[in-house]
């Protein structure tokens, strides 16, 4: 794949979300892998791939621009800069003849937004009912959850910033809900 081709994510962030208490930015193109590995093979597969697969659901490991989140007992979500990936993907493909596992490139399935600001939990909670206090949702935690009716993957980047990603076709819905909330507050 040529790195010159920029994939149009077809999502607009309205101006009202780009400033204020919470600043929303569209995350550029990323590579995303969905990795399924039996728990018993987790350590062996991670070693062969040269990565760390966190054992506990909700935990992440971020190293050299690649974020790996454990979403389920046998499911990991890997996301980061696209240049770093083809190697990892190909290695995992080869390994899948040896272990009961699968790797799927889901790069274009999702789009992500990053939300930053002191009131960030408030805007996430508009659509997501999780407890976002630091005790219940510490920095680094990542989970699949919902934003109103859209399934999302929510990752806390710092005390006051989250990355939120959803399937691409749900993005106008997700961004629309955020927009309606902010518009309502500024009337």
């Amino acid at each position, binding site marked *: 794949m040529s790195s010159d081709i920029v994939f149009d994510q077809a999502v607009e962030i309205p101006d009202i979300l780009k400033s204020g208490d919470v600043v929303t930015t569209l995350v550029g193109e990323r590579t995303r892998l969905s990795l399924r590995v039996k728990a018993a093979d987790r350590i062996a597969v991670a070693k062969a791939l040269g990565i760390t697969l966190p054992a506990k659901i909700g935990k992440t490991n971020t190293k050299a621009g690649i974020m790996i989140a454990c979403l389920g007992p046998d499911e990991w979500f890997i996301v980061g800069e696209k240049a770093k990936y083809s190697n990892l993907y190909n290695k995992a493909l080869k390994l899948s003849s040896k272990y009961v596992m699968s790797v799927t490139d889901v790069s274009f399935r999702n789009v992500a937004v990053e939300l930053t600001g002191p009131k960030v939990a408030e805007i996430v909670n508009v659509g997501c009912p999780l407890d976002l206090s630091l005790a219940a949702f510490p920095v680094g935690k990542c989970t*699949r*959850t919902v934003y109103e009716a859209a*399934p999302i993957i929510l990752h806390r980047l710092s005390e006051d910033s989250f990355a939120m990603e959803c399937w691409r076709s749900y993005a106008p819905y997700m961004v629309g809900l955020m927009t309606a909330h902010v518009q309502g507050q500024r009337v």
Partner: protein
Amino acid sequence: MMLIHCPYCDEKRPEIEFAYAGEAHIVRPNAAEQQAMDDVEWSKFMFIRDNKRGEHCERWWHANGCNMYFNAVRNTVTDKFIKSYKIGQKRPSAAQIQKWKDQANG
């Protein structure tokens, strides 16, 4: 909104992340057993449930979470979840359910 404990996430999570998946501990007949079953027996397996009033062992799916199925004992009268447990664990006895309730009541 209720909070439901997922035994895989080991967290209480909002109800809307979950989907109900019917009565638990119903063993699917294997292929040979299915061949030997007549339509009445098959329809009993497929459709007939206890529809219990009270403490009910049932399946739940953490669809918008860890994506795992698990079982839970829930009181169908009060809607109170008594305990969630992983797939593979045996159906809890009445004594076990009582013990869980006593523990919950401290």
